[in-house]
């Protein structure tokens, strides 16, 4: 009786909020993840400029803009995911969590939602910058679909990145090669999601006739990927933590 009574006190929601709150407080204090991700994103933009510098006047960056944009996010998210889990690993804090009466999925959701928030913050900062640097001066600048469509594509993509990424990063921080291992595991697994969100974002940016159909088809595929892979990640997380 005593055991079950005291268990009733435990609230997964309260634990989830605690993990999220802790991650945000730590990040606001050190600004470690946001500065490293943000700075890295800026550097990638410079590399893009170099890559496109000889493309010539007739080359429309807009044609490949969606791909370039997602490329920034995929690489910055690798950096952020790794950092986020290193925090748990470094002083053995993850063990302290595992030894406490917390359901393993709560840890997964806490970390994944935190990662999603940081990724979205970086996106909010990079997307307008990217637009002004690479698309602002172009003749096509006036065209393009509504912004909420791009926002939706960014959200669905980030959701998959944060969820599956949290699982893979939890594994990679326990290996010898940390960030390298994360990239090797992460990019092939992310491949279908990236393909769809790039297609969706591109459809909106180009706004060719009938782009909405393509967009919704791609969003459906991306959401399907998110649903299946997040479910798999959620199911497998307990095994990873137990090892």
């Amino acid at each position, binding site marked *: 009786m005593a055991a079950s009574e005291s268990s009733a006190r435990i609230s997964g929601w309260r634990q989830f909020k605690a993990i999220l709150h802790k991650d945000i407080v730590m990040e606001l204090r050190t600004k470690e993840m946001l500065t490293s991700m943000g700075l890295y994103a800026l550097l990638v933009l410079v590399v893009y400029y170099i890559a496109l510098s000889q493309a010539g006047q007739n080359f429309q960056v807009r044609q490949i803009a969606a791909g370039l944009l997602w490329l920034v996010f995929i690489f910055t998210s690798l950096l952020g995911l790794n950092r986020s889990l290193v925090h748990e690993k470094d002083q053995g804090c993850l063990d302290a969590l595992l030894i406490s009466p917390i359901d393993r999925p709560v840890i997964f959701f806490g970390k994944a939602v935190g990662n999603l928030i940081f990724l979205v913050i970086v996106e909010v900062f990079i997307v307008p910058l990217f637009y002004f640097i690479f698309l602002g001066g172009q003749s096509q600048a006036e065209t393009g679909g509504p912004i909420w469509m791009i926002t939706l594509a960014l959200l669905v993509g980030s959701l998959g990145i944060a969820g599956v990424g949290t699982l893979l990063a939890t594994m990679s921080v*326990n290996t010898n090669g940390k960030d390298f291992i994360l990239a*090797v*595991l992460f990019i092939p697994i992310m491949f279908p999601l990236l393909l769809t969100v790039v297609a969706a974002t591109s459809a909106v940016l180009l706004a060719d006739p009938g782009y909405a159909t393509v967009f919704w088809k791609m969003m459906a595929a991306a959401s399907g*990927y998110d649903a299946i892979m997040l479910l798999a990640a959620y199911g497998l997380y307990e095994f990873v933590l137990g090892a």
Partner: protein
Amino acid sequence: MKQLKIAIALVLLGGVLTTAAFFMAFYTAEVQTFGTVTLDKTVDTAFGIAPQELQPPQGQGVAYERPWFSQKIFYFHVPVAEASFLVLIIAAVFSVIFLIKRRAADDTKARVAMETALIFVILTMITGVLWTRASWGVWWEWEPRLTTYFIMMLMMIAYFVLRNSIEEDERRGVYAAVFAVLAAVNAPISFLITRIIPSNHPVVFKSGMASSNLLPFIIGQLGMLALGYGIYVARMSEERLRERVELAKEALEG
């Protein structure tokens, strides 16, 4: 030792069968017109060995029959691709069993199956590239099947990279199994999604087969499966020997 004998026998059988299928493809199978493709430019008939009557008319941009070589490699490519799928599924199944039962033996089985599958996937990639060259006149095409195979190969390489970066035995097994399951779920999604994304590339892939060519195909398929199982058994018996050596070493130390 018995297992090793079985393995050698299976590898030999597989070798004989696939070779037989390959020769049959050249001598007994009839040359068919599978699908036809309309291309705007002259097709560079791959390897220059297609018989004259099968060469497309020069520079006319009309319907063109699939050249000779691509038909021959079919008897090798498709069996090896199907075998790779089968071994991969076996690897995933062993991974799931390992996650549930946590027996080291299942981890070894999953790993060895994955090794065998990787060999087959690489063979599929090589023959696939030859096929694209022969059939479509390009070495590489981001076509759904090829793309999926490429991603699958990367995931399988990642599986071994992951394994090599973990020292603790059980953790290595669990992480590898988790990744294998994730990859197995991911592969079909990859394939579906590469098929539905908007693309500028012409779809040039049509399959079909007459029953008269079924015999060499089936022989090739059986040979490939025997080969796959043979490699698996051989590697497993090697692993078992190594485990016995480890045990003996430990006993000596104690």
